[in-house]
């Protein structure tokens, strides 16, 4: 009759293809609507010449870029809670170069900001690579703890760089001035918007490519990845480097827009922000976390929410995600609508998964 024969019972269950990690969805009409909604404030602020709105949108755009940079780690099954390290490393690379060379943004027709941003990407990639190297043999829980410790270490290091003193800013004794770029808030807003859009498109393209499939396969099962010809440890390291490079760029722009860097860039706040944005936006998509990061950052600035309250909110979001879907928290396949049945064998106890088998050992 032209229809496929149906099997019932255990036979159907045996023939059912194994569940594989879902690929990030292609941008459907819903995401075009979302993109339009995100672009609307930028256009309105540009037309209205509102400096306040422009500065808020500039920061929000950068936060969106920062949030989307974390997705490589989620895709590769590495729940980093220390993504502030490459972000801050990028910003501090800008400050270091600007003070040592010394570089000025004016007089070189925009060449200097490009050099500084490239250096920040390199610094972010190195910081991410360091985290990847340190965590290459660790279980997911230990990856989270160790990456968090690297951020705390970097914060302590940053507070040792005390010259010159900037007055009138938070953490005044340790704020380092950076050549501001661009000159106006509107320019910053458009650069941030372009950076966020480029970040979303690049990360989305990579995650939908063969490299993205390899990352997700490496996250799901190392032996499957090896059977398919993928070098899982190398892929996980590359994921740290790539996400660190993008975070470094976001940090470089943040430093240049603000005209300073402070040790607060290396904070639990920034680290938990990306995780919360990914959980809220849905890491299964690429635009979702960027949009969530953008909205959270804009709302926090407009409402002038204290950093401590923001941190508690981010932590609550991540904790709620952990309670809701404990098997896939901080992973690309996390979903608010999914809850595994209580009888399901946890991933940590499933045979054949090298990293998660280690988690089982850790849980002994």
């Amino acid at each position, binding site marked *: 009759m032209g229809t496929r024969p149906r099997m019932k019972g255990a036979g159907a269950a045996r023939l059912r293809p194994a569940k594989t990690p879902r690929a990030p969805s292609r941008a459907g009409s819903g995401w075009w609507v979302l993109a339009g909604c995100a672009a609307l404030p930028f256009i309105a602020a540009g037309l209205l010449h509102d400096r306040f709105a422009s500065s808020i949108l500039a920061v929000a755009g950068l936060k969106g870029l920062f949030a989307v940079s974390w997705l490589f780690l989620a895709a590769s099954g590495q729940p980093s809670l220390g993504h502030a390290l490459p972000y801050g490393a990028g910003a501090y690379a800008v400050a270091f170069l600007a003070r040592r060379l010394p570089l000025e943004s004016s007089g070189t027709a925009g060449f200097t900001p490009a050099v500084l941003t490239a250096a920040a990407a390199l610094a972010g990639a190195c910081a991410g690579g360091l985290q990847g190297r*340190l965590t290459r043999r660790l279980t997911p829980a230990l990856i989270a703890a160790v990456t968090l410790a690297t951020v705390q270490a970097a914060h302590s290091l940053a507070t040792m760089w005390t010259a010159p003193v900037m007055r009138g800013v938070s953490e005044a004794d340790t704020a380092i001035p950076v050549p501001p770029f661009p000159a106006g808030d509107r320019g910053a807003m458009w650069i941030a918007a372009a950076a966020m859009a480029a970040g979303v498109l690049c990360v989305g393209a990579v995650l939908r490519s063969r490299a993205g499939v390899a990352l997700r396969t490496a996250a799901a099962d190392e032996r499957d990845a090896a059977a398919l010809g993928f070098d899982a440890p190398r892929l996980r390291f590359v994921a740290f480097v790539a996400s660190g490079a993008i975070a470094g760029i976001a940090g470089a722009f943040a430093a240049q827009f603000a005209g300073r860097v402070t040790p607060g860039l290396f904070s639990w706040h920034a680290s938990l922000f990306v995780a919360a944005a990914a959980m809220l936006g849905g890491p299964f998509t690429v635009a979702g976390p960027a949009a969530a990061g953008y909205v959270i950052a804009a709302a926090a600035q407009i409402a002038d929410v204290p950093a401590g309250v923001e941190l508690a909110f981010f932590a609550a979001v991540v904790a709620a995600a952990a*309670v809701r879907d404990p098997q896939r928290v901080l992973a690309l396949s996390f979903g608010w609508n999914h809850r595994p049945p209580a009888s399901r064998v946890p991933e940590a106890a499933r045979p054949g998964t090298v990293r998660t088998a280690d*988690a089982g050992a850790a849980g002994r």
Partner: protein
Amino acid sequence: MELTTQLIASGLLAGAPYALAAWGAAVALGAGVLNLALGAFFTLGAYLALEAAARGIPAFYAAGPAAAAALALGAGIERLFVRPLRPWPLASAVVLLAVGVAGEAIFFFVWGGAERSVPLRLSVVQIEHVVVAGAELFVTAGVTLGVFALMALARHTRAGLAVRAAGDSAEIAAASGVHVERLRTWAFAAGCAAAAAAGAFASPNTPVSPSMGRAALLFSLAAAAIGGPGLAGLFAASLALGVITNSAAGYLAPQWGVLVPALVFTAAAAWRGSSLWGRARA
């Protein structure tokens, strides 16, 4: 030379209370949980010590009430959040981190964000050129006795045997009639209580602030990482880490007090990999 001797003596005395917090981290790991809320319990103990000092009571007297409060809180947290998430170590660690952050927010709203100091009210003892506070000597002696008492309990009592059996194999322990879940709850709560007592003991040596527990968390994880699961190893690691941290902070900059434990924990975890926690037991 005098400075070196002084720094070593101060480091030994400062590291001793952290052995309790390190035991709290290790005992949670023995139950398969990475307790990232430990710092909040440490801070709770420090703030209770601050309140005691403000009322004219020696700070370390607050260790008992702090431990009791932390025991009740820890048992509740374990029952509510940790036990349902036990098969997923990452999920339980993330939830405990959120609990720690929530604790920081509560401390901020109750006591404010400013750093405070707890005064030492007991006399100072001078041995040759080394000057130490009498309270620190008292606390170190108490912690040392406590560690030996715990070792004796673990080795020579039925409760200790049950804890060790549950750490080795929960299934076999359960088959032998040990109520493993209840044991894990009380082990987790005891770890939280130990961290709170450590916070009360260490409060005169460190500025008290809502986020002070982060450094204590790193210190305890680092000591647990290099000291291993045994109590003697934990105690020795805490003392060694106290000396290194104190010396680095004294010779270089105060920031090294946080930097050294963070680096030690990171290096130990990277070096030993996931086997770091494999042997952990209560």
